[in-house]
């Protein structure tokens, strides 16, 4: 039976790698079972870091799993005639297999830092060096995304703001900054196609930024449990050309019946 069990452990790396390769190659049965379309240059960096770690850990996974298989195959008690190697370890080996992984891990950590800073710390600036102002404000509340654009005056937070639920439009190929917050419980503003995620926390104001380089309609997902209706807290992100965007915003602000609009509680600055 030793052969059988060793082979069972050999199937782990084979099937494991097989499933990943199958998914990455988009083969039948697993079509679209890989990183979803990415439309954000920042997201490309994240994807390439993901792939980098995947190849690295994949190699370690295959190597250690093969070693495990080989030792089980070779040292199966019912077949192996060699006497047991009576030994308690090897100082040299311990040092080698501590230092190598330590250096690798440290390298991976440092290698990520720039991308992290770009994603969360270096907010885009205007040509004059000041921080780029937010295009819109997104507020999570049970169970919808409230979106507000500055009206004609270009200032966010006063009466002529345009207020919409769940329908975020942004211009393509431009740096977009959004101000995000929550009105009640935690939510998480997750744009899978832009590799962007940020929890929104009541009492905090945060900013996210991205540049969408393809037009189309994409999902806005709530990724932090926010109550029974969490699953239906779905928004849509429409990326369109600057002209379309302006036209759309114009239409929204004209359509908005001011008499009916009352700013919701908690949104006042």
């Amino acid at each position, binding site marked *: 039976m030793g052969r059988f069990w060793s082979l069972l452990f050999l199937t782990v790396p084979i099937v494991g790698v097989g499933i990943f390769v199958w998914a990455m190659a988009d083969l039948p049965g697993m079509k679209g079972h890989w990183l979803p379309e990415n439309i954000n240059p920042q997201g490309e960096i994240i994807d390439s870091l993901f792939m980098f*770690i995947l190849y690295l850990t994949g190699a370690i996974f295959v190597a250690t799993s093969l070693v495990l298989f080989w*030792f089980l195959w070779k040292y199966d008690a019912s077949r192996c005639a060699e006497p047991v190697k009576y030994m308690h370890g090897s100082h040299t080996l311990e040092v080698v297999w501590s230092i190598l992984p330590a250096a690798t*891990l440290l390298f991976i950590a440092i290698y990520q830092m720039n991308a992290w800073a770009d994603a969360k710390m270096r907010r885009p600036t205007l040509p004059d060096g000041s921080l780029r102002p937010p295009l819109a404000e997104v507020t999570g509340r049970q169970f919808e995304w409230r979106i507000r654009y500055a009206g004609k005056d270009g200032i966010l937070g006063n009466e002529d703001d345009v207020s919409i639920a769940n329908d975020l439009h942004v211009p393509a190929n431009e740096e977009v900054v959004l101000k995000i917050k929550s009105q009640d419980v935690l939510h998480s503003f997750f744009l899978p196609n832009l590799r962007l995620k940020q929890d929104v926390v009541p009492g905090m104001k945060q900013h996210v930024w991205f540049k969408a380089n393809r037009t189309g309609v994409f999902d806005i997902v*709530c990724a932090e449990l926010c109550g029974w209706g969490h699953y239906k807290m779905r928004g849509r992100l429409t990326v369109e050309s600057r002209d379309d965007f302006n036209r759309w915003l114009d239409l929204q602000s004209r359509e908005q019946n001011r008499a009916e609009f009352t700013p919701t509680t908690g949104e006042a600055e």
Partner: protein
Amino acid sequence: MSTTTLDTHDTSAHGHTGGMSVGTFIKTYVFSLDHKIIGLQFLFSTLLWFLVGGLLALGIRWQLAWPWTDMPVIGRMLFSAEGGQISPEFYTTLFTMHATVMIFFVIIPILAGAFGNFLIPLMIGADDMAFPTLNMLSYWFMWPAFIFIGMSFFWPPYGAGAGWTSYPPLSVVTQAAPGSDWAQTMWLLGVTMVGISSMLGSVNYLTTIIQMRAPGMTMFRLPLTIWAMFITAILQAFALPVLTAAGFMQLMDRVLGTGFFLPEGLIANNSDPASGGGQPILWQHLFWFYSHPAVYIMILPAMGMVSDIIACFARKPIFGYKPMVYSISGIAGLGFIVWGHHMFVSGMNPMLGMTFMVSTMMIALPSAVKVFNWLGTIWGGKVQFTTPMLFALSFVSMFIIGGLSGIFMAATPVDIFIHDTYFIVAHFHYVLFAGTAMAVFGAIYFWYPKMFGRMMDENLGKIHFFLTFLFLNGTFFTMHILGAVGFPRRLADPYDYETFRHLLPMNQFMSICAICMVGTQILFAFNFIYSMFYGAPVGRNPWGANSLEWTAPSPPGHGNFDFQPIVYRGPYEYGSPEVDTDFYPQTQPPPTDPKRIHKPEQH
């Protein structure tokens, strides 16, 4: 330490002949002070909760594979109000209670409570724990926890629904989760009681291991199981107070309106504005300050037991005993400075994310060292593929996957995308189910003869292993792929999203595997119960192992040893040239012929 303990065998003999009075029965088996009985009480209770947690998981899997359809058979039993269909509120309850039960009522108490209790005195050569009464209390404090958690199922929406992480404001503002008033409060009380139980246990384990070792049992002659239990007890002793305090703060926020975790003026679903002064993220820091060390509480003892099983069935000394001890300690130490990796996108200062990334990466190092040493142990041995060994080997194989997926999430930019997706779910099921739970199965098969004096059926055990191994990978490996698509966790119906709609068939496959996996456990339950009465009776040392528990009778009577164990060496002297057998018990005196004495190599 008593040396004449054979008399207690009479007591157990009376039990079988039915001549025991009710009072004696209660003293022996119910409010027992004997660490072995307490260990078994923990074992039986946690195995029952394991069943509960497994059924809750099937509820989750049902909803993900066949959303909004009636769940056959158990559906009507569990939620008759909805006609067998899972409501979205109940879905939040399902995953909250599944995780809570599995973490706080199965894994932590089965490792520390069941195996810690049963093994520590036996493996160090003591007659019992240092504080038997405290030990008994640590079990009986589980009962209020059982009752509180059980009660939380009685109020709509029939269980707490704020996740096992219980993040405020959702968990604090009752209006935010309508109906959750009592369910969530009971949840908090239940988890706090588990904490008290673990605390009582860990004080006892620390004292016992430090004070009660048999003559000759130095710290570096302890089996790795005991080292792991020792370090785990330290982790618990230092991390638990934080959770307990945080739990009380949340309780006060809920019932007294203190507002530790609520910002000023917060209104959720028409609640009264919060008086404020608090911060929701504060809870996350406190919670993970406990719960990250807790994930190691949930795996270190398993690692220890796996080391013992692997050395025994490779018939070879453990490779790198001291590096193993140091890496257990290293994991524990680093474990206190990595909690922020659960909060990379929580709104915490991104600068902090950088430091937590570095510390988290470094914690993968001791884990890697352990894997290499296990492989080194197998190298050059004589591997016997017994059921416990198969489970232990699968622990190694699966822990590699779980450890490596941790690196993806430790990388902050990558975690932006995969945080709160099924990638995380894959990660922790590989370390906790494919890792710890499989190790626990192995440990049960391994120490069962010591617990009950009979073997579990090996053939049935191997079938149980094979099917569990197959189905667990079918269930959990594919979760990595879902995670790569960004498939979010905790959604009752993710298929509303265009991005995830096409993932339904994959989820159905996973759910079928999950159902089969739970079904397979019937084999285990049968084997476990059947062998108690009809298993082949064994002597003291059925596996030919070295550590002290195998020199005691199976099962050991009250007081454990019928002689005074004296320890001459470490527990891993398999294949030693000093003796003709391929094992060399810790209590066996060295050979008298000086030519046979083996000089230890320098390394």
